[in-house]
């Protein structure tokens, strides 16, 4: 199953305007494809065909009446199943929320639908976004459409697989430690994690609130820029959002002359696949042809990012997930007393990895350990932020591979949590610091895609998308 390179948001938009096809045609075609292929891939948890056809009809009506439409109007999109869409089930990949129907829509969903994008379904994911392979979902494992023996990456496993298998034009995911970029890398897509404070999380089922960010998984950098412009920007329901300019599209293609790319030496050490290293270095060498200067930099504390991340992330999630107690929504296990109800509900409603991380998070926050782990990690997080901030005084971009390894086999790392955690080693820094980062395909090794990660300074999505769009053309 090779993805169709020629599909782009802009080309479909033009096709719609020129009357080559209707939005309804598009929706019908994508559902045909889903019905044919998703039995094998398992990218979707639920579909909403009837709703999609009604929305597509509305877009067709607008086109017929010559109403000016957004680039996203009529474009089929798949949504990670931790984003609320009013009236649709939202499971977060968990038994806990198997029958939960969202009573309102997330801000990003309202914005996409206002732009006319057509939601076709909710995608599979690691349970509550805890995982790097898609394997912790309560709704079965998602397969990598490029090689069905391999994982698609996670936690936005279904979102990446749906786009890579041509079952959606683009998808939304969420990225707490790499959950957009790593599956994008494994499925040969462009994945953007915006700056912390760019995209409203209102209506996102929270994993770890000081890390979570929503972003697009797309076929091309331009598609990524189009989606970013439509979902980013201030929102009254998320107080972390900055009032910064969100326009990025017009900047694609701008000159890169005189700019500097930083290569952090600490990332290119033991543990990285030799062939990924070679491929990345080839791409870096090619950057000179774009007028860029290459500079080796040092981020000595970045090697602690993964430990910092897993301490703070589990601490925050152990608190965030306390809301799943069987009282107001979701699964409830009946029992004699209220306390037993809580304990059984959580025992039966959560899967293994979720319980493991809640226990870990409870540990790092517990009396006697909070200073040694949680508070220490917070301090080191600030030191790492300072280190990156200083680095961006010297360089405009920081480039690394997205993942230290190629897509691995289904089941390969499932029983060893620490090994699984290590697959996030290059992506977590951007979340720890809060800066934007993008993964893009730079070629294949053994027919499996390799992803390059570009990190930029705070609110520099415009810059990293521009660089990515030019690497795309090399």
């Amino acid at each position: 199953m090779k993805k169709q390179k020629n599909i782009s948001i802009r080309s479909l938009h033009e096709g719609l305007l020129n009357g080559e096809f209707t939005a309804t045609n598009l929706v019908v075609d994508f559902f045909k494809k889903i019905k044919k292929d998703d039995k094998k891939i398992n990218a979707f948890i639920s579909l909403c065909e009837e709703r999609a056809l009604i929305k597509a009809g509305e877009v067709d009506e607008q086109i017929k009446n010559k109403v000016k439409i957004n680039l996203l109007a009529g474009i089929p999109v798949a949504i990670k199943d931790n984003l609320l869409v009013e009236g649709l089930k939202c499971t977060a990949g968990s038994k806990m929320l198997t029958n939960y129907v969202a009573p309102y829509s997330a801000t990003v969903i309202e914005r996409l639908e206002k732009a006319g994008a057509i939601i076709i379904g909710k995608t599979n994911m690691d349970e509550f976004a805890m995982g790097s392979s898609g394997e912790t979902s309560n709704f079965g494992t998602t397969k990598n459409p490029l090689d069905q023996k391999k994982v698609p990456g996670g936690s936005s496993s279904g979102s990446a697989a749906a786009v890579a298998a041509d079952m959606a034009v683009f998808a939304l995911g969420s990225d707490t430690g790499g959950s957009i970029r790593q599956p994008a890398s494994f499925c040969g897509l462009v994945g953007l994690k915006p700056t912390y404070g760019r995209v409203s999380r209102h209506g996102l089922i929270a994993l770890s609130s000081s890390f979570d960010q929503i972003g697009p998984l797309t076929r091309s950098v331009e598609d990524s820029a189009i989606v970013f412009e439509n979902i980013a920007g201030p929102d009254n329901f998320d107080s972390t959002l900055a009032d910064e300019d969100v326009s990025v599209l017009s900047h694609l293609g701008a000159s890169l002359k005189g700019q500097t790319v930083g290569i952090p030496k600490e990332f290119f050490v033991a543990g990285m696949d030799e062939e990924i290293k070679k491929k990345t270095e080839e791409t870096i060498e090619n950057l000179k042809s774009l007028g860029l200067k290459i500079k080796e930099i040092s981020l000595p504390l970045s090697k602690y990012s993964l430990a910092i991340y897993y301490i703070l992330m589990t601490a925050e999630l152990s608190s965030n997930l306390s809301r799943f107690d069987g009282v107001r929504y979701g699964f409830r296990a009946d029992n004699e007393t209220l306390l037993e109800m809580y304990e059984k509900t959580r025992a039966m409603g959560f899967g293994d990895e979720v319980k493991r991380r809640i226990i870990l998070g409870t540990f790092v926050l517990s009396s006697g350990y909070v200073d040694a782990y949680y508070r220490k990690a917070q301090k080191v997080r600030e030191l790492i932020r300072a280190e990156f901030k200083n680095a961006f005084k010297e360089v405009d971009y920081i480039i690394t591979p997205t993942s230290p390894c190629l897509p691995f086999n289904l089941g390969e790392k499932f029983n060893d949590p620490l090994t699984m955690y290590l697959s996030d080693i290059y992506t977590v820094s951007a979340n720890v610091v809060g800066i934007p980062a993008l993964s893009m395909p730079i070629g294949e090794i053994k027919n499996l895609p390799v992803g390059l990660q570009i990190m930029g300074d705070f609110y520099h999505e415009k810059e990293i998308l521009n660089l990515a769009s030019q690497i795309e053309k090399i």
Partner: protein
Amino acid sequence: MKIDIQQIEHLAKLAKISLTEAEKNRFAKDVTSIIDYFDQLNEINSSKFVIPTEPALSEVERVEGSQILNKVGEPFHSDEPKNLFSTDKTLAEAPELEANQIKVKAVFDR
């Protein structure tokens, strides 16, 4: 540091999750190895460093770098009641209702 079964039981109690014996054994092993990994932070001396977000420490020198904190926009919106969520739809998600109120077992013994 080795995390034993008793510690896992204590944590499970704090987290209000009942665990099976098999889970306790497995988590004790997993948590021990993950915490060993966390212990690499002992290499860093951060004793003089304070967390910029802690108001009580505002007098002390802060490390620059928490750009996130000073770049946020207007974090407040006007305090006006709005009908954001439908009461019916929200209550429809509750596992058990009585007279339009969420029902649970008694909190206190009679």
